């Protein structure tokens, strides 16, 4: 079952740590976002394969916006 990684708050994507097709463990960092001048690691909610990355570095995101899909 596909799981969406959502942005926990408004901010900006700084860097993407994983590539599409990579295996990710639960709690592993998928990307890093910036909010309130602080770097916040966004972790995988489940273990699986990274199917899709919906954002790119530098992009502003809203809270709950879909960032990536893990299957």
């Amino acid at each position: 079952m596909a799981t969406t990684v959502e942005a926990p708050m408004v901010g900006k994507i700084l860097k993407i740590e994983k590539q599409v097709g990579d295996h990710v463990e639960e709690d592993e960092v998928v990307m890093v976002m910036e909010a309130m001048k602080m770097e916040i690691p966004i972790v995988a909610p489940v273990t699986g394969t990274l199917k899709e990355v919906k954002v790119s570095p530098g992009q502003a995101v809203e809270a709950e916006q879909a960032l990536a899909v893990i299957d």
Partner: protein
Amino acid sequence: MESALISGLQGLVIGVTNLGLGHVIMILIGSGLLYLGIQKGYEPLLLVPIGFGAILVNIPLADMMENEGFLRFFYDAGVRTEVFPLLIFVGIGAMTDFQPLLENPKIILLGAAGQFGIFLTLLLALAVGFDKLDAVAVAIIGACDGPTAIYVSSKFAPHMLGAVSVAAYSYMSLVPLIQPPIMRVLTTEKERMIVMGLVKQPVSKTTKILFPIVVTIFASLLAPKGAPLIGTVMLGNLMKESGVVERLKSASENEIANIVTLLLGLCIGATMEADKFLRGQTLLVLGLGFIAICLDTAVGVLFGKLMCLATGGKINPLIGAAGISAFPMSARVVQAEGQKYNKKSYLLMHAMSANAGGQIGSVIAAAVMLSVLQGMGIVGG
């Protein structure tokens, strides 16, 4: 001719011959503050002018804090009149976004809890023998808010301004070191792992505009002595939220704030004259100030635990640590600590709410304290 030459040369060394041990120590302390600001990056905007002011004022015979002296001029004009800290408050208001707080109003309780350290420290300072007004100035370090501490101490205990502001600013920059151990001791592993959902309650523009006006009127009526504090913060915020005076708002948070920060820093440094600063009392001030910030954090976290219980485990008590005014440092500390225990925990925005509450809380706490003191007849109206 020869003797005139010798007297002339004596004039050149007279500064050196008048240099006492106290001056040397204070010049070293001033240099230490410069080192922290320049090399370590701790609050450089403040520590650079403060450190330099401390060096200047301890040069013998330069008389910068005597009548006519240039530091005395700025001190009398801006610190004794309390104008400098108030102008800084306008800038702070213009920079502060109360949205996280308005989205989640019950969090303001944490901002109130985070101020208890002030009152507990007041009792402690009285117990160790501080004069009533001096005790107030020491306790206000617990507001964890530089301008509030400067405002209150310049009003009641101007002779302690140097010690109080140095304590306030150094502990603020040490928040990331001071808070985590206290947060850890007071919470359980399970509490620290609580994930808090998103706060998504839209806040209308009208609410954001009315907020500073309503807070000013009610808080000032409750604590009239604090009206200048609350009024200036909220004026700045109203200018930001109304969106119609962009130029004034931008001047308040940039040009005015920069000029005043420079002059205020110099003046604070100028209060650090050897005979006033090198006393056992200064060490007590630093010690009690440290206790004040620890107590704030502890009461904030304990209150967070209470809210956690009351909501059936929906609130992570760690955010209570952000109920102090050190913005946004303590909110960042909470985010970092929270994610240390649960990688899927994102507490930043909740902590920001508590932090914004703490900012209002510290100003209101100072205002309340001023009014209570007036009511008790300790300070004149």
